[in-house]
């Protein structure tokens, strides 16, 4: 128990140090990298509510991420909506799409759920690349995605926008911390451990799983909108299945089922990408190698190092 608290505090310190260090490094290189990490981390902690807490392996989160980005971009670029409203709309858009996907995908469970979410997300990717070119810019994407205009601060300056992202990240993290320790979060864990028992105790298992998926969709929507505005650009690549794969890798690498693990997973992923891509175009293959080694030697991801969970494996939950 105490090991858990100390480990979590240490992980929090590492993340805080990363955020502060990036700010202290002169120039924009540090903040640019950590900006990217924070946006993806928001995506990953939302994803982990479904994946690590409720135990559903979604392979379609790219759809929620990309649609969030497109909702915000369209509203701002073509309809002149302000940034904060567009961000809220991205959350709603992600949540609504998550609800829509869940209606189909939750008819099945396990591997079939993964495959169905993958298929549905790919369908959206294909639609976005071709049929919906009018809204998505097709494979060219849409450039010139705006940033917020708040309090007279120039958020087109990357260092200023960094502070905005840190604030959104901290708020999102705090909200997720609450959700996970709430009775709602515990119920999701119970469902993952034993859904038959959870239903017998009186939990509406499907409704709870669906709720988790919808919350996760809102997180994905917001982070997708933030990524688009960070890059000033959005393309259907965000909807591609490899984006879904990336977030799975990040969560597993960091430690699924923990609040801060996925954040560290994102940090490692982005750091490796940044460094390795300078030396070789095959950086993705090397990340794959790191991922394979981690699943063999670090069964609980980076978080396992902090929380003292070695390779002993979890006790069965039958």
């Amino acid at each position, binding site marked *: *128990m105490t090991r858990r608290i100390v480990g979590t505090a240490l992980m929090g310190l590492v993340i805080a140090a990363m955020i502060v260090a990036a700010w202290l490094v002169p120039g924009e290189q540090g903040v640019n990298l950590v900006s990217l990490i924070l946006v993806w981390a928001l995506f990953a902690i939302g994803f982990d509510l479904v994946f690590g807490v409720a135990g559903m392996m979604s392979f379609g989160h790219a759809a929620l991420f990309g649609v969030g980005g497109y909702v915000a971009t369209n509203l701002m670029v073509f309809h002149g909506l302000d940034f904060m409203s567009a961000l809220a709309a991205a959350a709603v858009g992600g949540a609504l799409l998550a609800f829509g996907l869940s209606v189909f995908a939750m008819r099945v469970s396990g591997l079939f759920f993964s495959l169905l979410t993958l298929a549905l997300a790919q369908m959206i990717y294909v639609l976005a690349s071709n049929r919906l070119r009018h809204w998505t810019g097709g494979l060219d994407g849409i450039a010139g995605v705006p940033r917020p205009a708040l309090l007279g601060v120039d958020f087109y300056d990357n260092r200023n926008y960094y502070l905005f992202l840190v604030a959104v990240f901290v708020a999102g993290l705090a909200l997720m911390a*609450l*959700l996970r*320790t*709430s*009775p*709602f*979060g*515990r*119920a999701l*864990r*119970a469902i993952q*451990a*034993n859904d*038959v*028992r*959870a*239903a*017998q*105790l*009186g*939990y*509406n*298992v499907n409704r*709870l799983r669906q709720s988790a998926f919808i919350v996760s969709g809102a997180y994905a929507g917001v982070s997708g909108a933030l990524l688009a505005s960070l890059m000033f650009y959005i393309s259907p690549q965000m909807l591609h299945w490899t984006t879904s794969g990336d977030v799975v890798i990040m969560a597993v690498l960091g430690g699924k089922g923990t609040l801060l693990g996925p954040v560290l997973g994102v940090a490692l992923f982005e750091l490796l990408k940044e460094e390795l891509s300078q030396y070789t175009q095959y950086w993705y293959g090397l990340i794959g190698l790191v991922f394979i080694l981690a699943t063999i030697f670090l069964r609980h991801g980076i978080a396992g190092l902090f929380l003292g969970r070695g390779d002993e494996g*979890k*006790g*069965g*939950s*039958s």
Partner: protein
Amino acid sequence: MSAGTLKCNDIRVSFGGLKAVDGVSYEFRPGKLTGIIGPNGAGKTTLMNALSGHAATSGGSVILGGRDVTRLPVHERTRAGLGRSFQMTKIFADMSVLENLEIAAFAHRYRVQPFWAPARRFRAVRERAEAVLEEIGLFRLARRPAGTLSHGDQRALEVGLALLSDPSVLLLDEPLAGVGRDQLDGAVALIEKIVRGRTVLLIEHNMDVVMKVSDELVVMVRGRILSAGSPAGIRADKAVRAAYLGEED
């Protein structure tokens, strides 16, 4: 807690061509413990699954407290006052004993699970869980991960989970399975204590125990009720003896 009524009308459950439960009609006596015995494969657990919603019926109806629950999903039946323990222990092994009971307590207390505050803030739920913890005699093990408990204690926790919703009808599927000889007396005493005032169905293979705790016995063979009556009457029943001797030995 009030004694609930439970009635089955011509319940049928088939697995492919196998008629696991083949037309069972019975009205269980409210507030009494009914033991269900019969050889392996007689359909005892399947009948219990049909009553709790874990097995789909191909015919017949389940009436709980005067209400037809045949089409209700598992969690709705629990909310209607039906509790159940499982033959294979289904506890949350990685969570502490107290957390196990709190999870049951939250399920019982809230239809929509609170998401706006940490679980530990809910005092009333904690107290309810602790009360059951006391009742099943596991208070000193509250902080232990449930998976590390002895088999007998896990069975007690399993019963405790079923008990937390204060069900008016309680289905116990072999609560003593695998409990060691040294823990048997305590386990039987626990069952006798918790069932008081409830309508209870008990599947149990230990004949001494069943005969001792049951008010009434139902004998199942090949998916049907062969005989029903008082334990003494059943003990003397020739047909029951024949069914047992013919099939098991």
